[in-house]
């Protein structure tokens, strides 16, 4: 519920951006702040607490079959898909230079450049304008870091991971936000 509310508020902010003279960068930063906070809360207070600390329930990629919690990355993706279904015009996704699902590897030149940049300097977001499908986008990429043991253990042990030595605090990927430009 909290995620939905946050996204709805973010959408409202975006809808009024033109009149409020909010820049694309400010808007992307605001959206990311909401996403990062929700993602951190779910990872730390739900998955890491219940799976890794209390050991009362597991998080699983196949959470329906396994009667488990959705993985943090899935929670993020489901939110992104929910936004896409609303056809609000902007989009966000989680990508990585070391993706478990190879479809989440960087695809556009901006994604490649941005993911490499935030991997080197996680504190600094990456911004770029790019044209995809004849639409010009303001693309912002933010470092997605391992914030709990749950992130590290799951990624390092997954059979499809291309990297097995992630450590807490390291950049594992990036949040890519795209705002269509007028």
């Amino acid at each position, binding site marked *: 519920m909290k995620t939905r509310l946050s996204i709805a508020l973010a959408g409202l902010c975006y809808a009024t951006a033109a009149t409020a003279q909010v820049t694309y960068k400010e808007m992307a930063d605001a959206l990311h702040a909401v996403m990062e906070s929700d993602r951190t809360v779910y990872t730390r207070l739900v998955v890491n607490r219940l799976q890794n600390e209390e050991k009362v329930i597991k998080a699983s990629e*196949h959470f329906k079959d396994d009667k488990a919690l959705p993985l943090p990355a899935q929670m993020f993706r489901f939110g992104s898909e929910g936004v*896409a279904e609303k*056809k609000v015009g902007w989009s966000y996704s989680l990508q990585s230079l070391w993706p478990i699902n190879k479809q989440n590897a960087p695809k*556009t030149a901006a994604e490649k450049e941005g993911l490499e940049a935030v991997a080197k300097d996680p504190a600094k977001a990456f911004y770029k304008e790019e044209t995809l*499908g004849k639409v010009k986008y303001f693309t912002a990429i933010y470092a997605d870091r391992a914030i709990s043991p749950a992130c590290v253990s799951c990624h390092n*042990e997954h*059979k499809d991971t291309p990297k*097995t*030595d992630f450590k807490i605090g390291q950049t594992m990927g990036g949040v890519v936000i795209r705002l269509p430009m007028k």
Partner: protein
Amino acid sequence: MTIAIGGYLTAGLLLQKSADDPWLAPARSMLLPGKTTHGHHQIELVCESCHKPFGGKEGLQASCERCHAADLKAANDTHPLAKFTDPRNADRLEKLDATLCVTCHVEHRPGITQPMGLTLAGDFCFHCHADIAKDRPSHARLAFTSCNSAGCHKFHDNRALYEDFLAKHLKDGPLAATPKLVQRALLETLAQLPDYPSDRFPLKALEPGAQDAPATVKASPGLMRDWLETSHARAGVNCSGCHQADKSAAWTDRPAQAVCAGCHGVETKGFLAGKHGMRSAEKLAPMTPARARLPMQAAAAKTELGCTSCHGAHRFDTRKAAVEGCLACHADQHSLAYERSPHSSLWKKELSGEAPAGSGVSCASCHLPRVEHRMEDLGLKRTLVQHNQNDGLQPNEKMIRPVCMSCHGLGFSIDALADRALITRNFAGKPGGHVDSLGMVERRLRELKEKRTPGSGVAK
């Protein structure tokens, strides 16, 4: 003459009632741009069902989603819309606009329509997965036409085919250790419903003489016996429960289907979504075997399908509905072979009491299976019959988890459902071919285990 024909065709096209009008329906038939698929032929004259005036592609897409979106969501659609609206896939959309169902499923094109209503070249996976061999070297030798047709992957529904599920079932034998189909537990569910009208239907078996039909209504002893032996009487549903569903309404001898839906809403929704009820859902005259494309029994040609056509009024014998109800109409080879099948033998043993409940396999066991239904608003789940007979078909792999795997292993189920001849024989015999998807998973897992050294930095 030309004006008369033009007027007739125009009237047929513009008047919405034309679809079910014996005089105007031929006009719409003449205007069909081509033979419709088996999935839509029953409603092909209700043009408005899919085509909205000035709706364009978006209108058509909305029509597709109106009937199919919920099923796709429930199937954990592997290729949901959101995957394609992401701008990073814009280059792929230029090759294949997967945001629209009609990109792959064009109606009225019989010359190019393949199984599942696919009208696209069979190697369509290539557009996005051309480099699959980089990630899966074992796929390098495979043709892109085989991804979707060899029993390994489906575009939408991979619930029984995804890699980790296959990995879990590598050791399955042909038959499960305790083969048994799910049983219903309606009374237990009803007792948990907070707003169940127990004042009217007290969940207590009614005794002979308890019937509340008006004295003016004459019912035969046979009819009364039928009712008393049903779940209705055993659950406290009296005559008025159906014949006078609304307490203030007058008695009716033939309750409408809506009365059944009053208590059996989910089942009715399924019925209306499938081939038995889709005409009724479009407000057309009910489906009859005469209107079917599959071979049907001539004697049943005019039987109009509704709840009582299979369940019978008053008796509501689900066991009779589960086989006799089907075979009274269906006369294709698969149906006619049922009586000689091992599934039928098990069913007969269950009916005679030689084998326990859930051990027999009727037509309905597979085509109208008992499935888990979640009542999210109440936080409850229950088992009920999926009355959309198409839910487990197109592709038939959809049947694997809710049906086949109650008794059979995954590998055996995949092989059996890929064997058309075996299906025609109604599964009398063993699968003649083998789909190697489990073997491929087993080999991949072994290779990964051998190659990977934990903590080495990067998986080799």
